[in-house]
């Protein structure tokens, strides 16, 4: 017999993946960052033990995958081991800027090669100068160095390109970017293009597309500040956490925020989440 969560996921009412905001701090300071992440911001770390406990409960409830984001997850020493633990149980994707994969880190993530784990890496432009304008100095070089080293170790890599207006992008530029990721060993099916969301620092900088809960897929997202409606929800602007897409402050037991998310999802019209294509 299917659980309530399994039924809701199977029916497409809510996403099957549970997201964990491992932390909010980052070694970069991107101009469109949803969480105003930077080296010196409040860490807001969820903690390895909390992630493990909640992921186990989420698995038992019937969720079908895990996502880890931040901040930069790999700034945390325990992240490779934590992701391996998640990946041994359910398919897992980790969002990373890929600038911290030195030799030691590469050795630590090698066990991920045998697991249904993908590291989703941000790469926005085929040219270093334009890419680094939004993401910071040396970002391009570090990313194009890290990707093949991960790929050659058999680790699943996806590329995420975040653009102000994906529909208006120059086709020639887009093709050069695709040639680049193919040359780095990442096929087209593992390349996603998505718009900048007008929240967090992007809102302060007046860039990106507006996204309310009507445009977002309900995906349970657990952070140190509570449970949110989507991984695009726990944004920070002017140092202050946005609460408009907060589901509950409590994140455990996971059944509580999951139930609250289901109640919200039950009130949404069908097909609401497809409008800006940011899945």
């Amino acid at each position, binding site marked *: 017999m299917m659980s309530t969560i399994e039924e809701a996921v199977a029916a497409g009412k809510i996403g099957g993946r549970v997201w964990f905001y491992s932390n909010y701090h980052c070694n970069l300071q991107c101009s469109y960052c949803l969480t105003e992440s930077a080296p010196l911001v409040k860490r807001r770390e969820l903690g390895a033990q909390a992630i493990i406990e909640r992921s186990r409960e989420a698995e038992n409830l019937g969720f079908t995958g895990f996502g880890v984001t931040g901040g930069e997850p790999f700034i945390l020493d325990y992240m490779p081991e934590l992701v391996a633990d998640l990946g041994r149980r359910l398919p897992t994707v980790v969002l990373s800027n890929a600038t911290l994969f030195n030799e030691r880190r590469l050795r630590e993530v090698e066990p991920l090669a045998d697991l249904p784990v993908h590291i989703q890496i941000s790469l926005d432009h085929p040219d270093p100068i334009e890419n680094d304008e939004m993401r910071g100095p040396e970002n391009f070089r570090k990313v194009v160095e890290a990707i093949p080293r991960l790929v050659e170790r058999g680790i699943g890599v996806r590329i995420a390109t975040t653009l102000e207006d994906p529909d208006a992008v120059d086709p020639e530029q887009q093709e050069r970017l695709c040639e680049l990721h193919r040359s780095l060993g990442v096929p087209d099916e593992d390349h996603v293009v998505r718009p900048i969301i007008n929240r967090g620092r992007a809102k302060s900088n007046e860039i990106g597309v507006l996204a309310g809960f009507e445009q977002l897929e309900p995906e349970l997202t657990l952070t140190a500040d509570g449970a949110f409606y989507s991984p695009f929800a726990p944004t920070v602007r002017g140092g*202050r956490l946005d609460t*408009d897409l907060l589901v509950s402050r409590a994140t455990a037991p996971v059944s509580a925020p999951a139930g609250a998310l289901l109640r919200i999802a039950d009130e949404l019209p069908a097909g609401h989440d497809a409008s800006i294509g940011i899945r």
Partner: protein
Amino acid sequence: MSARSVTTALVALLEREQAPLLARRFYGDGPASPITASLAQVPELLEVTLPFIAGALGPACLDERAKEIAILRTSALLGCRYCVQTHTAVALDSGLSGQEVRALRGDGEIEHVFADPRERVTIEWIDAVALGRGPVDPAITARASDLLEDHQLVELTLAVGATLMLNRYCSALELPTSAPTLERLAAEGLD
């Protein structure tokens, strides 16, 4: 009661656009009360607290007048600026006279203003519950039991208890009284 003007609270009061999804239905059409706008910080608590408050402080077996006597008197005894100011206006709307309101706020003798023995023992019970420690004095209990049915005593006691909770909540978080309420109290000479 001091008319100290407080325009900001100790915590952020969430405007409608920052209200969490499950909190929005408590916002209604006009501006949300500071209690709602502060509780919205923890939406799962808002969802259980507001219905509880509405049940405990709204009329049931006791009518609105009796409930407002309990709320205003308790709030005055606890010195909760927000609750006294807000419920002074509500009490007037519930039919209490200006003289009755003043007496409940401590400005006037209860015995001289409230002639009904049932209301007088009600206030005596409120005072004992709000300020006392341990069981209520047996003499007061005996008088209350003579004039109030068990279910009325239960409802009255819960109203006092719920008000005590709100008094401490509103005072500690320094919730601001709305400008229209302050203007009205000034016009009534009850600021």
